[in-house]
């Protein structure tokens, strides 16, 4: 009997329509990128572009010319290889495929950047800056928010309210850091504010079985209204002289901590090793979440309650307790991410500080297929495009609006074209009710 069953189990996957469709999509996508990169390469007249390898212009750090065209051709070669691999249908179906996609994406990005800055006509020539330091600098809300989403959804709770957690984190991070005159305390408060949103999410979705998407959306509206209202209650400086509250005196925002030696590694050094403590935490968090989800008892249980809660229940796991733990942990992550907008950058809270980045974090969760590493990669991509929006303002080779919508357009194309019908955790969004 076992012989008969193993026959069915070890059967080779057969090529069918979906498989062919996947190949066609890849060939078309890589083909378009190939054509674009080729056109950019051919349209560059002057191969020299300026590059500044520092945060700011200074005596020691001047923009230097380098042969950008060569970089474009290298990118072209990479895209060509990927295209050939796609044509002969040798793109693997596992994690390596992701690497190929990233390589093609980076090639396109490099080629576009060089093309964008090449052959300038304006009086003052703009230069390329290394996008990585500012990408990493912008990443905490996106990365931590996306990880919060991953942890929650892996446990079977849809967390639309990442935006709310970021907002509350930002606001209470600012207020408490001022009250306590300590950024550290502010960050803890931000985290706790995220936990409070998670508590509401849990109360309504786990305890009262309200639709989780609905709760999430409403929590965002609530957080937006509450933070705006409360910010209005903080006295302005003139009023403050009379009231004498503590809120006027907030500590300076977090400053970069340079790790000597490592920070002078070319290209990556300043990006990875000259950042604030919040950024370091955000960079470590993906590893922590991966370890927790895949290597610990807790993670196994979280994934079990997200996939098949009844199965978990029948081996004695308290489904809702595990879900509570997961969403509270997620809330702490996202709240900490929210601290970036205040404690991590400006120190003061602006209305709607998160400005939709919670939604982008949600998109990163789906693009990253509910995996901490995938979601982090997607979040870093969004952070990169945010950095790009700032950097590319000086030249106007393409309308600035096009660059502004690049991340959204890319997400739409990626999700529609390649992610498509991904498989979320099987019990995602379903309250667990014993019958």
């Amino acid at each position: 009997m076992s012989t008969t069953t193993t026959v069915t189990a070890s059967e080779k996957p057969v090529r069918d329509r979906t498989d062919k469709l996947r190949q066609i999509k890849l060939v078309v996508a890589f083909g378009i990128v190939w054509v674009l990169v080729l056109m950019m390469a051919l349209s560059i007249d002057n191969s020299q572009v300026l590059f500044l390898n520092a945060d700011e212009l200074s005596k020691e750090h001047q923009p230097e010319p380098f042969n950008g065209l060569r970089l474009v051709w290298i990118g072209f070669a990479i895209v060509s290889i990927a295209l050939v691999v796609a044509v002969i249908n040798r793109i693997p179906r596992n994690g390596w495929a992701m690497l190929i996609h990233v390589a093609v994406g980076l090639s396109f990005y490099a080629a576009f950047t060089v093309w964008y800055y090449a052959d300038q006509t304006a009086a003052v020539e703009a230069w390329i800056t290394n996008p990585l330091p500012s990408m990493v600098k912008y990443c905490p809300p996106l990365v931590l928010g996306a990880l919060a989403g991953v942890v929650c959804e892996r446990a079977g709770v849809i967390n639309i309210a990442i935006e709310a957690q970021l907002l509350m984190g930002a606001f209470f991070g600012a207020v408490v850091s001022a009250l306590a005159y300590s950024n550290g305390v502010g960050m803890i408060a931000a985290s706790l504010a995220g936990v409070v949103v998670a508590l509401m999410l849990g109360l309504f979705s786990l305890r009262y079985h309200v639709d989780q998407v609905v709760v999430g959306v409403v929590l965002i509206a609530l957080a937006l209204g509450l933070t705006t209202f409360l910010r209005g209650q903080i006295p302005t400086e003139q009023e403050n002289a009379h009231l004498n509250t503590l809120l006027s005196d907030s500590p300076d925002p977090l400053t970069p901590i340079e790790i000597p030696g490592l920070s002078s590694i070319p290209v990556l050094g300043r990006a990875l090793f000259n950042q604030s403590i919040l950024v370091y935490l955000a960079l470590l968090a993906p590893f922590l979440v991966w370890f927790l989800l895949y290597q610990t008892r807790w993670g196994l249980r979280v994934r079990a309650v997200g996939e098949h809660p009844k199965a978990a229940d029948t081996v004695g796991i308290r489904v809702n307790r595990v879900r509570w733990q997961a969403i509270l942990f997620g809330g702490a992550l996202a709240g900490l991410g929210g601290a970036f907008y205040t404690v991590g950058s400006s120190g003061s809270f602006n209305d709607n500080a998160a400005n939709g980045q919670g939604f982008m974090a949600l998109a990163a969760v789906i693009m990253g297929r509910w995996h901490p590493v995938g979601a982090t990669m997607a979040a870093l991509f969004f952070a990169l495009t945010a950095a790009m929006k700032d950097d590319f303002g000086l030249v106007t080779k393409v309308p600035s609006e096009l660059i502004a919508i690049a991340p959204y357009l890319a997400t739409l194309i990626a999700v529609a074209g390649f992610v498509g019908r991904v498989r979320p955790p099987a019990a995602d969004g379903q309250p667990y009710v014993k019958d």
Partner: protein
Amino acid sequence: MQLQIQGLTRRFGDFVANDAIDLTIEPGEIHCLLGENGAGKSTLMNMLYGLLEPSEGQILLDGEPVTFASPKDAINAGIGMVHQHFMLVPVFTVAENVMLGREGGPVLNRGAAAQRVRDLSDRYGLRVDPKALVEDIPVGVQQRVEILKALANDAKVLILDEPTAVLTPQEIDELMGIMRELKAQGTSIIFITHKLREVKAVGDRISVIRRGKIVGTAEPTATEAELAEMMVGRAVKLTVDKDAAEVGAPVLEARNITIIDPRGHEVVKDVSFEARAGEVLGIAGVQGNGQTELIKSLLGLIRPSAGEIMLDGDDIGRYGPRRSLEAGIGYIPEDRSHDGYVSSFSVRENLVLDLYRSPEFSNGPALKLAEIERNADDRIQEFDIRTTSRETPVGSLSGGNQQKVVVAREFSRPLKVLIASQPTRGVDVGSIEFIHKRIIAERDRGTAVIIVSTELDEIFALADRIAVMYDGRIVDTVSPDIEREQIGLLMAGAGGAEGGAA
């Protein structure tokens, strides 16, 4: 370990699912619990396993009263359960499934877990690969994983809830071997089933449950007819009255159908058959051998990768369900709550779920509400659908009445072909007889009928010709006079014209 149940009662609102049940399971005994679908077997077992709280009564282990607040308590007390719907996480490996809930430390040790699985499978002769993903292994092996899970918790009392539904006759034999082996090592087993044959083959004692009450106990020597009568409460005819079929011309022809599922596995392999007017073609086979996909392709829900489905000289496989329904196919899906009705819709709406487009019930973009209401009243009466009103949501009806809604709808228009998959699954005996009669009546009207069932009894009762599916192929087509054993062999892939796999 001796397990005693005293006066166990469970109510859901006004409904008494279990009514003062008394039962004693001795150590090393295989105790069979026999009852129809909906008799209350699962409720009882869920109380034993800590999934449901009893309304009254108590459970005693070796004379000591115990209460199970959660399955954890039951597991710790030495009770293990193999659920009818496997409680396995599909995306986890076998080892991960076995270790879940008893991981043995905050950080996972997958090596040790795999070793534990290997040890257990050696000891009890349950071969599995600990590193295989559960979703990749066949159901028979998944069941072994379920048993291993219980054994890994040192279960002294093992509850097997309808374990044979997904197995071939040969696998059932093997399972019974395992049960005897466990019994020999001192494990008590509660074996829940509604199949009389199995009870007689393996049971030491038999308790029969009906409408939430234990109506009697019997020895394995009792005849099947006696057991059936105890189970249903009246003498049951296990056969359907029908005349010989007047077979006409082929109506629907499947030619060389091959289907590849989304994961890239070939689940239907080059299947050809024809359904003829006035004849019931039964498709037999163990669940998961391609029947589901084959049937769905006949309606156009799945597009075959190769092959044609010819109805009246047209390949209807290319168009989708709407064209197939309009071409005269009636379809009773395998899983009615999933594909057969919309549970929040009223009986009235569900009775026109695939008919609202017809000129009878709509006028361009507008529905004819009066006609739809009239239709509902007629069907409710004709098919004896027990509902408080035509506006009651179908989700709140009993399983049998839900199925009657689906059947009534499909029978309310002229059909060329009727495709019915598991037409009586989870349906009470009265409704089974009713639905069987209607199917035969449809046949006698000259419709080509295709019945898919994993219940051999149903196939034998209805079919005029039986096609047996194994591993995505029709291994043989036989007449219903064939011996049970031989069909069993065919269902396991042995023998037959094309069955070369075994």
